[in-house]
């Protein structure tokens, strides 16, 4: 496992060698991590074990081996800690007979919120839903149902918010709104853990990720730092310049450079040299000198593979 960044001293969520299997199928294998306040994205392909891991964290299913703790308590045994958890489960089903307001108010009541009706209005406002809507949630679109689920998860102002694919079915504006809302919750000191297999979404949640592949924790920490630790894979960097061949000639002899490739100018954009290097920081320091020697102007120096997509593909594919 690739681990980056120190674990928080007082973890809000902690998994200690947690494993879960269903018959012969190992869903989660020997997973350990500690996370504190802020937004953490749980990333992995479909079937990687994300939902099972989230269910274990909330106490919805027990680990077959190891332990999970939320705010220091076992959520399966200590029901009082459940008052500190808000969950958006993956499944769509809600209580069909209820309106959105009734559904969220019920959640508030069960959590022991002092003014359940007021809290329900507050939570529905957070997700931009009308609390006076008298329709049953069965008439709602998938996106509206997702927002109701988010509202019920936040109605008790929980310390730990667990969100399993919360943006499914939402339009781009609502996605942006909820991503901003989750970010705000993290900044306020809550521990927000969000699962997704959509990398663009995850990148917008923040840089801290837990990458799960085939039930195992493949990496944890800041995904850019994770990329820097992948020493066994060259970094790819694009150098856009006005003198391609000259710069390429200078770069090929630079330390740590494995290969260079020319990308011709096209559609009004200057050409570029694509460089594979084993040492990105050293390359960044040496590229300006190489351009100077070639009497060239540097237009752009940009990494091509330190985005989340690249990190993810590497981690789950290795």
């Amino acid at each position: 496992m690739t681990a980056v960044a120190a674990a928080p001293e007082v973890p809000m969520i902690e998994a200690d060698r947690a494993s879960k299997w269903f018959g012969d199928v190992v869903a989660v294998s020997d997973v350990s991590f500690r996370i504190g306040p802020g937004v953490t994205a749980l990333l992995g392909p479909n079937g990687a074990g994300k939902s099972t891991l989230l269910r274990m964290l909330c106490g919805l299913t027990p680990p077959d081996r190891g332990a999970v703790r939320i705010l220091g308590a076992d959520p399966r045994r200590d029901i009082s800690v459940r008052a500190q958890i808000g969950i958006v489960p993956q499944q769509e089903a809600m209580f069909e007979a209820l309106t959105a307001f009734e559904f969220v108010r019920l959640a508030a009541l069960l959590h022991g919120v002092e003014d359940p009706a007021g809290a329900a209005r507050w939570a529905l406002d957070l997700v931009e839903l009308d609390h006076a809507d008298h329709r049953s949630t069965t008439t709602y679109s998938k996106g509206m149902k997702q927002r109701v689920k988010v509202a019920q998860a936040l109605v008790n102002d929980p310390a730990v918010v667990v969100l399993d694919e919360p943006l499914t079915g939402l339009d781009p504006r609502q996605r942006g709104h909820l991503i901003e809302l989750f970010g705000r919750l993290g900044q306020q000191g809550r521990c927000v853990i969000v699962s997704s297999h959509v990398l663009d979404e995850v990148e917008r949640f923040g840089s801290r990720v837990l990458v799960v592949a085939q039930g195992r924790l493949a990496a944890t920490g800041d995904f850019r730092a994770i990329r820097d630790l992948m020493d066994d894979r060259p970094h790819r960097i694009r150098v856009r310049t006005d003198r391609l061949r000259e710069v390429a000639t200078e770069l090929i002899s630079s330390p740590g450079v494995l290969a260079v490739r020319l990308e011709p100018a096209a559609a009004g954009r200057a050409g570029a040299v694509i460089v594979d290097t084993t040492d990105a920081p050293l390359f960044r320091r040496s590229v300006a000198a190489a351009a100077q020697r070639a009497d060239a102007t540097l237009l752009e120096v940009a990494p091509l593979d330190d985005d989340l997509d690249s990190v993810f593909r590497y981690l789950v594919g290795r």
Partner: protein
Amino acid sequence: MTAGYRSPKAPAVRSGPRLGPVFVAEYRLLLRSVCTKGRLIAITMLAGLSVLTAVAIALADPFDPVFRGVGFVNGNIATLIPVAVLVFGAAVLGDLIDDGSLVYLWLRPVPSWIHVLAAWLATVTIVVPLVLVPVVASTLFIDTSGSLLAPAALGGFVAVAAYGGLFVTLGVRFKRALPWGLVYILIWEGFIAAAGKTATKLAVRSYVRSILGSMTDTHLKLGEFSLGVGIVVPLLVAAAALAYASRRLAKTDVA
């Protein structure tokens, strides 16, 4: 513990929910959820059929109305009442487990016995007016003196309560609770209970028959217990079943 995490506008949370209002809210929710149109129509039609049967019995043979009335009530306690309780009782929590919406009750600081007791009460609340009241009232067609009202009401209520406990538990325990319940009603209680004394003791029907027999001075097959035993044992069975269901629900895997 939460103070550091609360935003200024956020709702205030008590140290724990008040169980009285929580119970009432869950009871109302489960009552509304389980009363689907299909179930209500099906069970109402069966109850209507039972009323027609009472009318037919009254018209066919006016002699010995008490004996025939006891037979009518006994027949309903053996079939209609347990089937109706099964249809609602197995579904009341079973549906939530199947579709995954149980998570919205389970992941709350609420003990599991609240969910189970609310489910049982919701089941009893539906079946009593929908089935038991028509059956008890129909005895008046057969025996106009009204002497069957009390035994039918008491026996019927004990049956609803006991089967309610068993079938709510069945819904928590098994994914396909309906066929398992039918197997219990038709095979176990219908046939195996008559095979020996031990099997008789393990059938709710035997105790309810004892209530009917004791209160009407009639002899019913399998109804060999005293009135007290006939009342207390099924209620204890229901309580034990609900206690097991609470424990099971607390330990269940929630989707």
